[in-house]
């Protein structure tokens, strides 16, 4: 256990957030030889600085952190909201900007949001979608899909979709139109609730260093 306390374990998601997170962490001295999301090694260590990286599937990062298998992690706010894990949300890292929205086929657009009550919605984010529609006083049928959400209305699986959008290109290409924005999302630094207390000094200085780098970059 003593050795466990010496190490700081960081969970990073594969995919687009990986490179941005790794680059930012490197700037404050948190890196390891061979750190890449293409690596076949799942744990990459820096013995000298007592850092370990876990590279995992995006949706699993909050799980690693909640259970304490990783002390901290980087994850999109969208995934964080969807999984509702009990973790510290320490820092808005600014990158990975996207927003969650509801879109419908342009040709069949209805007048009001309420006109979609009791219809089917295809989404990768059923929890967030349910919470949103509940706040609007709407009941929907949620169809959980794991990818190519835009396909839902095209093949008649659903009347609408709830999904994340970065540029809107995919929506346009599929003749879909955003009708309501649900949530803005960026990458967040999260921490296990016990690690944050037991390794407070180390995690706190990491957060402060990251904040400085982010502020300097924002100022440029």
């Amino acid at each position, binding site marked *: *256990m*003593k050795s*466990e*306390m010496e190490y700081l374990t960081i969970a990073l998601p594969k995919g687009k957030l990986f490179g941005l997170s790794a680059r930012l962490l490197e700037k404050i001295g948190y890196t390891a030889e061979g750190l890449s999301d293409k690596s076949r090694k799942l744990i990459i260590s820096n013995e000298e600085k007592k850092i370990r990286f876990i590279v995992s599937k995006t949706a699993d990062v909050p799980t690693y952190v*909640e*259970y*304490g298998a990783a002390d901290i992690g980087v994850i999109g706010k969208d995934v964080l909201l969807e999984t509702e894990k*009990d*973790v*510290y*949300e*320490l*820092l*808005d890292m600014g990158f990975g900007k996207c927003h969650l929205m509801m879109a419908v086929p342009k040709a069949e657009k209805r007048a009001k949001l309420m006109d979609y009550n009791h219809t089917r919605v295809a989404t990768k984010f059923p929890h967030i979608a349910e919470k949103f529609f509940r706040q609007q006083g709407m009941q929907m049928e949620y169809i959980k899909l794991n990818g190519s959400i835009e396909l839902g209305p095209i093949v008649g699986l659903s009347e609408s979709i709830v999904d994340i959008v970065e540029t809107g290109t995919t929506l346009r290409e599929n003749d879909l139109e955003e009708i309501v924005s649900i949530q803005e999302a960026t990458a*967040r630094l999260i921490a*296990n*609730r*016990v690690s*944050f*207390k*037991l390794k*407070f*000094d180390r995690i*706190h200085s990491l957060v402060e260093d990251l904040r400085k780098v982010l502020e300097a970059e924002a100022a440029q």
Partner: protein
Amino acid sequence: MEKDRSLLKIPYGTRDFLPAEAAGKRVVETRLAELFAQWGYEEVVTPSIEYLDTLSLGGNRGIGNHLFKLFDKENKTVALRHEMTTPIARLVSTRLQDSPLPLKLSYISSVFRYEQAQAGRQCEFYQAGVELMGPGSPATDAEVVALAVSGLLRSGLTEFTVCLGQVEFLNGILNQYRLSEQEQADLKAAMERRNLVELNQLVEQLQLPENAKQVLKKLPLLNGGEELLKSAYDIALNEQSRRALDNLAEIYRLLKAYKVEQYVRFDLGIIRDFSYYTGMVFEVYAPGLGYPLCGGGRYDHLLADFGTACPATGFALGIERILLAIERQKLPMHSLPRDVYVGYAAGKETEAIEKAAQLREQGKSVELAVNSQTETAAKESQQQKNYAAFVYIS
């Protein structure tokens, strides 16, 4: 007919304790029961079910969703207790209201809460704890913190940290900037959700000078040793927070007398999940476990909700969490002693029964063979069952 497989399952969030696990639980519970008694705490037992209204009184409003509820014969809603502090507060206010103070009570019980189940976080779980009703002095707070530390040490743990805070410190800071009730509630809710990003966003929206904003953003980060307490006076520009810091300093002075200060850190932004806390609060964390082992604090108004105003303080230790921390930290696992295996040859039953009785009389744990065996077979049984000694009656 095919067997109904669903009969073989147990309900969500519950677990069985197999012999080795049950032994570990029993050892920890026995040690804690002894320790509480040594400190002058008397054990009480309350019903597993209480009226829903009792459990959701005062600071407990909002707990409803986490309770296991059922109806009694008169169709009143009853619920399985979700913690022991409220039932004991009810007990003290209604049954022990005339007893001389201070009252020092302890319990070892199962409690029930709807949780997303994971190891060490079941819907039914076991807690050992104490409640001290009497003067609202730092001495009583220091006593319960010291007892919690002793309890963890006695349970076999060596590596853990107590984070000590004071809810009045936080309240004082929020008051000093004249924040509205709604603003205070929002900031607290963000901290309770451990969402510092949201806290920062909320603070930025407030009409406050920059230095005040910095103080508010820093609240969850006030974590450190004795020096933190001293530096906290610089941001506590109000009587309420300063009194809270004085209170913590006095508790810490007494914890030094108990010689447990090496386990203690200050965490002034600590927020406990139950809103009935009114003063000192603490949580205990151990490496290898993703959630606290123990939590507690002062709750001066809860008894008044039941009609007998009396300051009180206490804590609850999670038994399964202690066992899990022992396992994860690779410390020796607890087991019950297995002293002697008594085997016997055919026709020697009576002598064997007498021998076993004699050894048990001496305080040994003895397993008597259920039928006659050869000496070799008996020896095998002894080894298989892990008994330290072997007696064979021939």
